[in-house]
């Protein structure tokens, strides 16, 4: 079996007495899109900085294509493109000049044709000669991605690439990531604290909390439709709790609190439930589906936090 494109073993890093990353291990296989999830301050950026040699781990190892990576082996980064946090660039230079500079840092032999290609790919054609200081946040992100992919690395490490973007910008970056994965075969590690974004692009998900890995699984397994949490706002009805308890919906863990019915089930059952409520004279004023993953995530992180409190 081929070795993972990227693997970390027991990665640990503390700042002063704060443990930012704690005994973190995971492996990323070629061709997958890894969602790296965690709340702000969970240790995602620190981990990614260690992967790129920006920060040195206190303990643990990083392997790129099976070989140990260290500060003296920085040439191994040739096969990785990355944006860590904001894609900050030289504002006094044009997008084109920034791209040219960072392309040259990755590979001396990148031709102008390739630069045009990536400018077009990230949708900056026509604006590449403008000074970067005149770019919007979204344009900077796209230029950042152009810089990350210009030397055609096999793997991309993208740290919160949609941070600070408007919904349209978020959608554009999301589509770009999907395209890079599907059309260009890139392996991608993308971090976010916005769960619904990751679930739309990731094939695998790693969740970390307080520097520790909480779970790691294929996205399909974490995000099963049966685990969708559905919230239904009802008009007051005294009989309803008893009614529900005696019905078949009870098997989905239906609970009522303050006229809010919560139930974990496949969203395909919603029309059926709605019909049942109407038949029992319960008026519905609203239905929302909260992704189970979100609940799952909150659940896990809350559990970890609670466990910390009790310790």
């Amino acid at each position, binding site marked *: 079996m081929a070795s993972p494109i990227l693997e970390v073993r027991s990665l640990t890093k503390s700042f002063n007495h704060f443990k930012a990353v704690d005994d973190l291990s995971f492996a990323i296989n070629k061709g997958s899109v890894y969602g790296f999830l965690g709340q702000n301050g969970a240790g995602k950026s620190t981990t990614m*900085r260690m992967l*790129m*040699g*920006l*920060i*040195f781990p206190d303990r643990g190892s990083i392997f790129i294509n099976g070989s140990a990576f260290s*500060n*003296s082996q*920085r*040439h*191994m*980064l*040739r096969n*990785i*493109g*990355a*944006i*860590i*946090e*904001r*894609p*900050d*660039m*030289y*504002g*006094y*230079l044009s997008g084109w*000049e920034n791209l040219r*500079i*960072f392309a*040259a*840092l*990755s590979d*001396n032999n990148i031709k102008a044709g390739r630069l045009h290609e990536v400018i077009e790919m990230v949708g900056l054609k026509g604006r590449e000669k403008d000074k970067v200081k005149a770019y919007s946040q979204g344009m900077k992100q796209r230029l*950042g991605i152009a*810089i990350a992919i210009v030397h055609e690395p096999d793997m991309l*490490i993208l740290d919160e690439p949609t941070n600070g973007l408007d919904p349209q910008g978020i959608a554009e970056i999301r589509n770009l990531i999907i395209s890079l994965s599907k059309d260009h075969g890139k392996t991608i590690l993308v971090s976010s604290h916005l769960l619904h974004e990751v679930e739309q692009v990731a094939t695998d998900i790693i969740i970390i909390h307080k520097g520790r890995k909480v779970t790691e699984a294929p996205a399909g397994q974490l995000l099963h439709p049966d685990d969708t949490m559905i919230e239904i706002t009802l008009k007051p009805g005294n009989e309803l709790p008893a009614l529900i308890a005696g019905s078949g919906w009870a098997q989905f863990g239906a609970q009522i609190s303050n006229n809010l019915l919560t139930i974990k089930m496949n969203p395909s059952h919603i029309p059926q439930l709605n019909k049942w409520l109407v038949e029992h004279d319960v008026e519905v004023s609203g239905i929302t589906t909260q992704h189970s993953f979100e609940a799952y995530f909150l659940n896990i992180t809350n559990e970890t936090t609670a466990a910390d409190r009790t310790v």
Partner: protein
Amino acid sequence: MKQLLQIELFKIFRRPRTYISFGIVTAITFVIQLAMLTDGKSYMSFALQGVNEQFDIHGNMINGYFITYIILQTLLIQIPLLVALVAGDTLAGEANLGTLRLILTKPISRNQLVLAKFGSSFIYTVLLVIWLAIVALGVSLLLFGRGDMVNIKSDTFILILQDDVLWRYGAAFCFAMLAMTTIASLSILLSVFADNSIGPIISTMGIVVVLTILSNLDLPLFNHIKPYIFTTHMIGWKGFFDDPIPYRQIGISSLVLVLYTVAFAAATMLIFNKKDIKS
């Protein structure tokens, strides 16, 4: 490495700030030239009070060579600031901008990056000194003409024949390049510790000013440490206008400056190679 150096130079010389230094050098030079044009004679008569009691000195004393010396002496404090303005920004400025993070995600070694920063700062320093030579020496010679050069030390009046001056300026400017390279080296070292360029620029100036004062204080306490302070040796360019030229002392000064430069560079690499980039 060549590519890295080209990139660093491209960044330096595409930035407006870089040209401010050249502008400041030009402005200070012109101000001194103007002052000497209007008030040079009284300056000279003050300086030559003691000599004039016994000797009549005729001729174009306030010539281009003399003015250049005055300019160089005055710029001793300003030029380090201008060097620090760019060298102090090399790492700290990139950290502040956030570009250091992006650069270091690229497959280049940190040592290479530091060396490229040194190389580009050195070239900037050399160009700044060459520019100084052009505006100070070139323009002064155009405005004030040639002539024998008068150099006044605290206890000696030195006259250098006009045909014997130019090579001394060549040597003096080369020495100034070395001295300023030491400043650049110090600035880059200080730049490693900071995440914005103001810190290293001000720290460089602070160190230069304090050490220059120590170098010039005539107190027995400081006389023992003076030979080990690099600012004592930064005025070694003046040696080329002495008679006889203290080649041995200039050699020692050059060596001290080279050692400081190398030590600063080595320390920069050592620290930068262990530094976590958190900016």
